[in-house]
């Protein structure tokens, strides 16, 4: 295994190229400017296409076009840019097209700030744009995982013909860590549905418009069954020090990594805390969390927002009165000491 030092932006880009991504369109926005910069050199090197689009809206629609043509395609941005991409993401979902969208989450709402945040949890896990749809959302907590999950995202996108989000943050975008790179030849799946010209076959169309009575309802139920399959098969989570715990802490992404340090500190002081870390934020690992929650009396949810994943914890856990929350919105990043204080407090 080859190990190199990479920033989160570069790691995600390398993971994409490794996964066979041959099309990238993006638009500059802090804190992920290294992403398009790096792709502008790497995509042509690897035989792919790089386009600096005139807008976030255009970038996601270029990705839509590349996906229509059967390419593995992606875009990256940060929160305000991801808001603009929601139109395209809704169309991708409606047309059942695979694509990968990386969000280096920064503080909001509005222009917010450029520091790390987890404030786009709702946007990522509840569809984000208009219509009845879901997007698979993967939340890394290290640069290695940014690489691994971007790679995985392309396989999941093709497997289910659905857009997949990698929800990282401004810290993971810029932080540098050693990354083990994958080697070996990547085989890409065939896409008979892609529009490549109708020579030798019947003409195809790709669309999300279904005007005849009941047809859209049928289409929506078909999508719902797909989301159900994804929910059953693609839940990813990790647990840490949960076997003997008295108190459960639930956290994701960067925040979970900081929380793990707080749990280690708590254990040194004799507090038996454990960490439940959802990796797939949608599909959310509801059942595993429910089982884990039955072992403890109190649950602490820690997020870099005002309490968004908290809703999913409340869906998973019976008796919500025992759930406590500690959050840092607006670009605030908690220290392990802060979280330890909350662990002690509850």
């Amino acid at each position, binding site marked *: 295994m080859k190990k190199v030092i990479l920033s989160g932006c570069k790691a995600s880009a390398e993971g994409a190229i490794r996964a066979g991504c041959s099309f990238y369109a993006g638009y500059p926005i802090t804190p992920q400017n290294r992403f398009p910069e790096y792709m502008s050199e790497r995509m042509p090197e690897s035989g792919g296409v790089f386009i600096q689009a005139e807008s976030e*809206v255009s970038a996601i629609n270029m990705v839509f076009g590349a996906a229509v043509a059967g390419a593995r395609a992606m875009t990256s941005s940060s929160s305000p840019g991801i808001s603009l991409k929601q139109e395209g993401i809704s169309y991708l979902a409606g047309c059942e097209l695979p694509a990968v969208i990386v969000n280096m989450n920064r503080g909001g709402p509005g222009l917010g700030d450029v520091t790390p945040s987890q404030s786009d949890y709702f946007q990522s896990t509840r569809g984000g744009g208009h219509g009845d749809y879901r997007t698979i959302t993967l939340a890394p907590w290290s640069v290695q995982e940014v690489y691994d999950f971007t790679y995985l995202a392309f396989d999941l996108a093709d497997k289910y013909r659905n857009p997949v989000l990698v929800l990282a943050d401004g810290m993971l975008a810029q932080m540098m860590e050693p990354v083990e790179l994958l080697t070996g030849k990547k085989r890409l799946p065939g896409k008979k549905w892609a529009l490549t010209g109708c020579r030798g076959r019947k003409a195809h169309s790709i669309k999300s418009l279904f005007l005849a009575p009941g047809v859209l309802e049928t289409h929506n139920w078909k999508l719902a069954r797909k989301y159900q399959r994804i929910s059953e098969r693609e839940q990813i989570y990790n647990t840490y020090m949960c076997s003997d715990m008295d108190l459960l802490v639930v956290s994701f992404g960067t925040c979970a990594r900081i929380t793990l340090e707080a749990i280690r500190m708590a254990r040194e002081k004799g507090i038996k805390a454990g960490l439940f870390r959802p990796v797939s934020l949608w599909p959310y690992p509801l059942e595993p969390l429910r089982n884990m929650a039955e072992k403890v009396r109190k649950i602490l949810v820690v997020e870099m927002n005002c309490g968004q994943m908290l809703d999913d914890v409340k869906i998973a856990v019976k008796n919500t009165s025992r759930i406590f929350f500690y959050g840092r919105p607006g670009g605030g990043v908690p220290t392990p000491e802060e979280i330890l204080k909350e662990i002690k407090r509850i």
Partner: protein
Amino acid sequence: MEKELRYIYRKPESMTDDITIYCPGCGHGIIQRLVAEVIDELGIRGKTIGIAPVGCAVLAYDYFNFDVTEAAHGRPPAVATGIKRSLPDRIVFTYQGDGDLAAIGTAEIIHAAARGENITVVFVNNGIYGMTKGQMAPTTLPGQRTTTTTKGRDIAIHGFPLKVCELLATIDGTAYLERTKIDSVQDVMKTKQAIKKAFTYQMENKGFSLVEILSNCPTNWKMSPSQSFEWIRTKMAAYFPVGVYKDRGADK
């Protein structure tokens, strides 16, 4: 002397048997037939990918017998960019109305032109939002009545119509721009020649080509088809002069 039977006129292979949703007298049927004839004549049906707009032509993928995708309102030039860059040897075109191309999709068309994307754009300018029942379009003429300009478009309030060919002609990335109209048989034939030239330019990798076609909307203009052609001839063509606005292929 043996008699040989041959077709002199029939439905192009590039059209399906679907019945269109277009109103009686609407120009979309004429223009889509011209596109289909051109694609047949150039022998590119098997490698063409079309992009349908949002608007009256939204169901174009049902009427064209080759690969066609949907696009969000105004985004066909961005979608075309993604397809063409991924499959450079295919023929990629967008079919867009004035609301799609000159209002909500202004950024996309200007920047596709600026990048010199090797795509073809069929731009149908009928000066009104047809699908949504007749609101003011970016190309509605001064004084023209619509459902959002019931006293007529007042330039002091609603601003001026956008002249797309003139605008795009200032962009270095464009290769061929022509404005035509479909109010007479001669003009329909000229329009077909322009569409054919636009596709040929793409086949020859000459870059961005667009044909703006002054078309009609009898229903929402509240006119008979013949009155609507007269309106194109006298009113629209006066504000939007027909002609070639850019022809890089003709430059020597």
